[in-house]
C-alpha cells in the first residue's frame, strides 16, 4: 500500500505564500545579508519540495526552521572552512602561495571532501586524510595518532564506506 504524500504541491504553494517572507526575515536576522537569506530561503523550500513524500505538516514554522537551521549550519561550516583555509594560506612562504585560481579550485575540492567526511568521528577523519592527502602508510598513521595498526584499518574501512554511501546513496525501493 502506497502511503499518501504528506504534503501536496498545493499545500506547499500555500506554505510558500504564507511563510516565505517570514523565513527570509528569520534568516536575515541570523546572516545579516539579504542575498544569502533569500538564497537559503529558496533552498529551504527546494528541500521541502524534494522531501515532501517523507514530510508531515504539523507546524509549518517549526518544519521550515528545522530545515533552514540545517542549511544555516552548512552555510556557516563553509565560511569557517574558508577562514581556516585563508589562515593556512597566510602561513605559507610567499613563494609557495598557489595562484588565485588554484586556490579557488582547492577550496571547492576541500569543501566537497569535507561534505563527504561530515558524519565521521575525528580519529576516522584524520586517518583518512593522512592516508589520502598526505600519502602516509598505515604504520606511520598508527604512530602519529598513537593507535594500533588494526584501528587504522578499521578507520579506513569506515571512511571508505562513508564516502561510498555519500557518492552512491542507497536506491529508493
Amino acid at each position, binding site marked *: 500500500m502506497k502511503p499518501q504524500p504528506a504534503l501536496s504541491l498545493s499545500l506547499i504553494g500555500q506554505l510558500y505564500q504564507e511563510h516565505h517572507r517570514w523565513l527570509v526575515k528569520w534568516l536575515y536576522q541570523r*546572516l*545579516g545579508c539579504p*542575498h544569502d537569506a533569500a538564497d537559503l530561503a529558496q533552498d529551504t523550500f527546494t528541500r521541502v519540495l524534494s522531501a515532501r513524500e517523507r514530510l508531515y505538516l504539523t507546524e509549518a514554522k517549526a518544519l521550515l526552521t528545522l530545515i533552514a*537551521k540545517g542549511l*544555516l*549550519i552548512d552555510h*556557516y*561550516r563553509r*565560511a*569557517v*572552512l574558508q*577562514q581556516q*583555509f*585563508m*589562515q*593556512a*594560506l*597566510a*602561513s*605559507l612562504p*610567499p613563494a*609557495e*602561495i*598557489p*595562484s*588565485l585560481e*588554484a586556490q579557488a*579550485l*582547492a*577550496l*571547492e*575540492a576541500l*569543501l*566537497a*571532501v*569535507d561534505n*563527504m*567526511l561530515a558524519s565521521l568521528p*575525528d580519529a576516522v*577523519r*584524520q586517518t583518512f*586524510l593522512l592516508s*589520502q*592527502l*598526505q600519502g*602516509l*602508510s*598505515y*604504520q*606511520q598513521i598508527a604512530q602519529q595518532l598513537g593507535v594500533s595498526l588494526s584501528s587504522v*584499518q578499521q578507520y*579506513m*574501512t569506515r571512511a*571508505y*564506506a562513508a*564516502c*561510498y554511501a555519500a*557518492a*552512491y546513496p*542507497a536506491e529508493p525501493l
Partner: protein
Amino acid sequence: MHPDQRVVEEAIAWMVTLQSGHASTEDHAACLRWQAQHPQHKLAWERLRDLSQPMQQVAPAPAIKHLAMQTLADNARTEQKVQALMQRRQALKLLLLVSGSAGLLGLGYKQLPWQPMLAQYTTRVGQNKRVMLADGTELLLNTATALDSDFDASTRRLRFYHGEVLLTTGHESPAQQANTAHRPFIVETAQGSLRALGTRFLVRQREQGIGLAVFEGAVEVNNGAQRQIVQAGQQLEFSRASIGAVQSLNPDASAWVDGLLIARAMPLGQFLQELNRYRRGHISCDPALAQLTISGVFPLQQPERVLQAVQETLPVRVVQYWHYWVRVLPPAAQA
C-alpha cells in the same frame, strides 16, 4: 544496477589492504583476480577507485597538501566555531576574523581578501547582473565577479577584483562636464590599470593575468612597466611581468551577455573550464580527452544540461560523484 552491499564491503576491504603502504605484489594480483570474478566486483572496485582519485588530485603540490590538512583536519575546532556562530548570530564577526588575518597574506598585491567580499558590485557563481553608474557607464557582471567604483571630481575609477565584466563607458552630459571637466575612466586590476578612451570593452581574470578585449573605441593598458593601446577588434592578455601580443578579437567572448557559451571546435578541456565558471564545484577532465573538440551554442543557465549534452555528443562518460564533483572520463572504464 548497484553492486550488493556485501560486494561493496569486499571492495572496501581490498582498497584498505592496497592503500596500507605495505601491500605486496601478491596482494595486488589477488585483488585483480577478485575483480575478474564477477562484473559486480569490478564495478564496485572502479567506483571506489574513482572516489579516492579526486582526493589525491586535490593535493598534488605540497603547499596544497598543507592547506588541505590545516583546513580539514581539526574537525572539533571547526564544529566549535560553527556552533558559536549559530548561537551568537555573529556572521559578521567571521568576516572580521578573515580580514584580521589577511594582513599577513603575501599575495604581492594591495588587494586584500575581504575587499571582494565587501565589494559594491558582486555576483555569485552562475549569476549575472547589470549595473548603471552615475555617469551613464553600463557594467555587465558575469559569474562570480567583484568590483568597486570610486568616482571623484577628477577620476572615474573602478577596482576589478575577480571574474569578468563588460563595460560600456558613459558620455558625461555637458552639465556634468562643465562641473568636472573631462574625467578619465580607469579600471584598476591586480596586474595593472586600463584607461578607457570612450569605449566598450571586456575585462576578465585569467589564471596568469588579465584578459582585455575591445569591442569599440580603444583602451590603454599600463602594467607599471609598459603601456600599450588596444584598438577595437583586438584583444590581449597582460600581467605585471609582461603585456602579451595583440590578437584579433574573438567575437564569441561576450556571448555570456546573452546567457550563451559558444564553442567553435573548442578543445574539451578548455570548454569544461569555461563551463565550470558557471557552477559551484569542480569538473575534472581526463587528460586523454582534453583535446577532443566540441562545437555548439550552449545555455549557461543550465550547466548540468550542458554536461548531459556533452555526454550525448562526444565519446565520453560524465560521472557525478556528488553535487560538487564531476569527472569526464573515457566511455569504457579501463582496468
